[in-house]
């Protein structure tokens, strides 16, 4: 695994400064994030980890322009997201971000190819061009045999690969995945993680992933740990990483020993 290097590299693709996010859930005041600051280098494969309610999904949403902070700045690929309206954000996401989710990724009434081509409807490409791009993306993820299949005839792993193809079809700078392996078995999960790493490696994409999956630690460049809305640093972060590995069992622990931060 590569160690993160900052010397001489491109400016960080994501810079978050003093970001807080609070919202009201029923009668509770939830402090999802408190004063979080971080910067993510371009071209890294990064994981946000932490227990339920730690704020990792919120952080992901902020970084991908799906949500706004109550306080603080979010700069992604040179754009200050706070300055954009809801509709602008939608436009921005369409051009700069590829999204992958745990559930409901694909539209069941569209074929794999049509699902992948979906984001291209937001561009001005012709029908032929859209088709071509979708097919290329599907080839990258290794699903050229299944282009005309409907999601219900694809396995869980294959569906996620289609989702990944859709995420890259617009050639975005940033790929964001929320629990992409959550619904998959061990073999498929590993395959997906490998594919994501490949995107970073072969195509220079920045990939950010929220996950519970301890296996992720083997594939990512960096891992950020959150707990109760706070970004853990230094010793706290290491302790959190160790806890994850221990909970997962011996093999993972060995792999995690290689993690340096």
């Amino acid at each position, binding site marked *: 695994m590569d160690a993160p290097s900052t010397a001489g590299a491109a400016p960080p693709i994501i810079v978050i400064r003093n970001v807080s996010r609070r919202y009201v859930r029923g009668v509770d005041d939830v402090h999802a994030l408190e004063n979080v600051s971080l910067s993510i280098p371009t071209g890294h494969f990064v994981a946000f980890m932490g227990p339920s309610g730690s704020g990792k*999904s919120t952080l992901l*949403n902020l970084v*991908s322009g*799906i*949500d706004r902070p109550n306080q603080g700045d979010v700069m992604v690929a040179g754009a200050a997201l706070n300055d954009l309206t*809801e*509709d602008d*954000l*939608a*436009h*921005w*996401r*369409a*051009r700069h*971000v590829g*999204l992958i*989710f*745990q*559930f*409901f*990724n694909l*539209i*069941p*009434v*569209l074929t794999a190819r*049509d699902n992948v081509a*979906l*984001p291209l*409807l*937001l561009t001005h490409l012709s*029908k032929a061009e859209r088709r071509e791009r979708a097919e290329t993306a599907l080839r990258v993820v290794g699903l050229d045999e299944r282009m005309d299949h409907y999601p219900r005839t694809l396995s869980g792993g294959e569906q996620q690969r289609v989702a990944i193809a*859709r995420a890259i079809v617009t050639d975005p700078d940033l790929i964001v995945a*929320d629990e992409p392996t959550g619904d998959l078995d061990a073999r498929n999960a590993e395959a997906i993680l490998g594919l994501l790493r490949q995107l970073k490696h072969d195509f220079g994409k920045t990939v950010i992933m929220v996950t519970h999956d301890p296996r992720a630690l083997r594939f990512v460049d960096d891992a950020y740990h959150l707990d109760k809305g706070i970004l853990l640093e230094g010793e706290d972060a290491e302790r959190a990483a160790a806890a994850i590995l221990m909970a997962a069992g011996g093999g993972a622990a060995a792999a995690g020993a290689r993690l340096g931060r």
Partner: protein
Amino acid sequence: MKYLGFILANLGRNKLRSALTGGAIMLAVVLVCLLLTMPAGLNAILDHAASNTRISVHNKAGIVYAMPYAFTRKVRQVDGVAAAVSSTWFGGAFEEAGRVTFPNFAVEVEHIGAVYPDYPIAAEQLADFQRYRDGAIVGRQTMRKYGWRIGQRVTLRSTVWPVTLDFRIVGEIANDRAPHFWFNREYLDQALKAMGRPGLTIAGMIWVRAADPNRVNAIMREIDDMSRNSEAETACETEKSFLSNFFGSLQGFVTIILIVTALVALCIVFIAANTASMGVRERAGEIAVLKAIGFGRRVIFGTLLAEAAALSVVAGGTGVLVTIGLTKLLQTFATWNDTLGPLGSFIVTVPVLVDGIFLSVFVGMLAGVVPSYGAARKPVVESLHEVF
């Protein structure tokens, strides 16, 4: 447009539901179109049957108060009158029907053609009408209803005059909106005299054709002035006015039916809208993902709305076709049995069809707006929270 495939695919998601919703909308459209054809049909009859140069002259007190026959001659002499004919209700019942099932009148055969040049009757037939005292000219609708042919003999028993007369059909009015049965007033006159009565001394109505439509009002005034202090004061009105008055005061009845049926149609639409929103709610997850990917609110709103509109346009179009088919069917039923006669007056006109299609589009948009708007408007993050 490029989203068409996506929209259609979504409609195919639950074909049964789309079919049922479409079916309900279709029926609502059929209902409303049928209702609209009632007044529209009447208007169409008025527009077609009523010429703008024809005037009806009748006794001011009422149609049952007749005018003296001699008055017809005076009317004919009024300036601007191209032709005038007296027409008297015979009230004849065709034996097989048992009661009066088509309007039949005793008319002046020499003048009838001139007053109704817009009714297509062959010249030789009009000549025969004048030649044969027992001749009759009958409207095509009535001929078809009873399967009569030119040359056939027909007997009518009058329910108003104490006579039964035997006629020979010599001509046909080649138009489906004039079911009249016309015969020679001399024939009735003779028959009455043969019974020892004074003969046909009255005219039930006088129909006038004006040479120039602009002179119609002036002619009507003059005729009324002429009769003012006589035994039979007249009231003239245009043919259109006469026919529309004749259709009677169905006002209250029609209003109730229109309102209630409109309400029912509205509620069927409401149910359709609810079904649409059920569908949208089920797709909340997908919609959230689409919004996250970058489909803006307007696009999502637009596609959802387009889905609703597409379904209702198809449903509406089908509804319009069904309405046409139904009215044709009704017209056939109308000829089977005289009770059903009025059913044949559901005449679908182009404006009604256009109304039907507009209605369905409107319905579609309306049914789709609320759920679509709600789904589209929510900020992405909320949708995601709800789903995940």
